[in-house]
């Protein structure tokens, strides 16, 4: 077989459009942002690159560090929830019958057919203090209260004086809920594909050889699915880190993340150099995480080789 890498003409013919696209619309704009991050505002509309480090120095202000810490924390928790919820679902899909599988996958894909903004507004409608979820809880409360009265326990006040609506919006919980809702399909799909490719007879072998279900899961299933889990974690974590719509709407401006600061620099504050510096710092954090993943992969393949 001919190696495509040995044929430069073929290589460029096939990858040329993509390369051009990447250079024009990714590398060049990113380069401009990189230059801006060492720049200063000289007028309302002009930025001069003076190689100042001021914009990066401003990253060390305690409020920026706090927002960075909060963003990392919220992204971490959201990723964890996505993995815990997503793994069982991926397992269900991977082991479903041939008839059911496409339907289950369709259910996972379905949210992509609606714009993110519309889905977020729908969540606002559900999670609000006067939202559908609290409507339902309030209704359940009343039914339970009636039941207690019916059996003569009403006066004990077991349920408290009255129904207090859950406060979900404007809290970290609300933001995590929103991020998980958005990211869950991205977490399920890579785990599913790694489970799908797995040789199921290995699980049977493990059980036949006397391992319990728990031992099989821990020593066979999860290690084999690990590449998918890692991909799911990264693909969930990175976009979660850059969320600004969710904190704005579901967080009600009370649980801002670092991307909200970036957005403001490019709009109201009109401070593109500082906005560029934060954006790039976020990019570096992402690179470090990806690098950690590659090291991890390399270490594992060495282990396997031994």
């Amino acid at each position, binding site marked *: 077989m001919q190696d495509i890498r040995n044929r430069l003409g073929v290589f460029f013919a096939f990858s040329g459009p993509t390369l051009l696209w990447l250079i024009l619309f990714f590398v060049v704009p990113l380069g401009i942002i990189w230059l801006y991050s060492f720049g200063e505002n000289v007028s309302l509309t002009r930025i001069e690159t003076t190689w100042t480090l001021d914009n990066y120095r401003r990253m060390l202000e305690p409020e920026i560090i*706090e*927002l960075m810490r909060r963003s990392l924390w919220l992204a971490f928790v959201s990723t964890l929830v996505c993995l815990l919820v997503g793994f069982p679902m991926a397992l269900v899909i991977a082991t479903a019958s041939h008839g059911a599988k496409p339907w289950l996958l369709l259910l996972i894909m379905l949210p992509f057919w609606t714009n993110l903004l519309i889905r977020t507004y729908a969540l606002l409608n559900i999670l609000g203090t006067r939202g559908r979820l609290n409507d339902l809880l309030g209704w359940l409360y009343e039914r339970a209260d009636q039941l207690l009265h019916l059996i003569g326990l009403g006066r004990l006040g077991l349920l408290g004086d009255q129904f207090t609506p859950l406060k979900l919006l404007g809290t970290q919980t609300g933001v995590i809920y929103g991020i998980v809702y958005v990211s869950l399909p991205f977490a399920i799909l890579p785990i599913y594909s790694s489970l799908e490719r797995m040789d199921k007879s290995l699980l049977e072998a493990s059980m036949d050889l006397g391992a319990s279900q728990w031992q099989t899961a821990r020593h066979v299933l999860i290690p084999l699915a690990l590449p998918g889990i890692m991909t799911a974690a990264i693909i969930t974590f990175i976009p979660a880190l850059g969320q600004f719509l969710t904190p704005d709407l579901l967080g009600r401006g*009370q649980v801002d993340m670092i991307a909200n600061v970036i957005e*403001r620099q490019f709009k109201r504050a009109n401070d593109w150099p500082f906005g560029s510096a934060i954006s790039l710092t976020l990019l570096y954090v992402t690179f470090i995480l990806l690098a950690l993943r590659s090291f991890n992969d390399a270490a594992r393949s060495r282990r396997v080789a031994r």
Partner: protein
Amino acid sequence: MHRSTRLPISRRKFLAGAAAVGITFKLPKEAFGADGKVNFYNWYTYIGENTIEEFEQASGIEVQYDLFADNDELFAKLRGGNPGYDLIVPTNDYVERMIIADMLLPLDHSKIPNKKNIDPTFMDAAFDPARKFSLPYMWGTIGVGYRISALDEAPSSWNDLMNSDKYAGRIALMSEPTTVMQMALKAMGKSLNDFTDENIAAAEKMILDQKPNIVAFAPDNGQDLLLAGEVDLAMEWNGDILQAMDEDDDIGFVLPDEGGLLWEDTLCIPKGAPNVENAHALINYLLDAQVGADIADFVYYATPNAAARALMSEDYTGNPAIFPSAEATAKSEVSIYPGQEVTRKIDEAWTRIKAS
């Protein structure tokens, strides 16, 4: 600055979206130098239904009418040089920017006799001293939208929203750093343009202390929170509350006693306009009493044209969301662009508020 129309679906939001999808840089047809023409660049749904045709019939001047969705679009089109517009309608802070950037032509007041119809209070503007470059077209405020049945009385002070736990857990503020800081200055009885370091620090502390009592820093949807019953008081643009009042009779609008922020859309002639004479004629026509009344009747924003206002019905002149109380309006101020350095200080204070 932004506005919304009275329509149930905010056209501003729709247009902003449309503009983001396909930004067109269409030149007015046969823009340059043509006699008997004028190129008018205005906001969407921001003129009387027949105003343009009536002007054409009365003057014999042909109007090329183009629309923009927000000030940023207007500014972006003119930044690289005037593509041929004769008359534009920027909001006060953009008038200021355009004056700084030398983008506007001084008006010849002798060619605009209808200037006499304008309420004299508008003829002295800090953003354009002696109204050298601009004349007022429409104006409005930022005040408080509230649910009438939920409160014993209408809120009367910005302190109710910004410096008190009286309405804890029922308040939405805007998510515009400058505007919220400005209203905090108003609550302290100071000018909303008085952004000294001390005042910024005091405003920061006030908002920080108030944060636990606030439900939301609403990104342009305070009126929705009000309609949904999630809050009972919301700092908002009068236009947005006007829209909510259309949908729900239980919503009211008030300008607190300390006054609020005034915005003003103005008529300006950009530098490089090919038909300066005709532009003056059109400005003069728009400031006519009956024409002004027809426009006000359709767009339903407050007119600065006193003669036009005198012709309007009680429905319009008596609407507190259009014309707040005279005392509160007198204490209201137009925002002055504070410069990049102060903007940065405000933004840093805002980040500290949000990080806490």
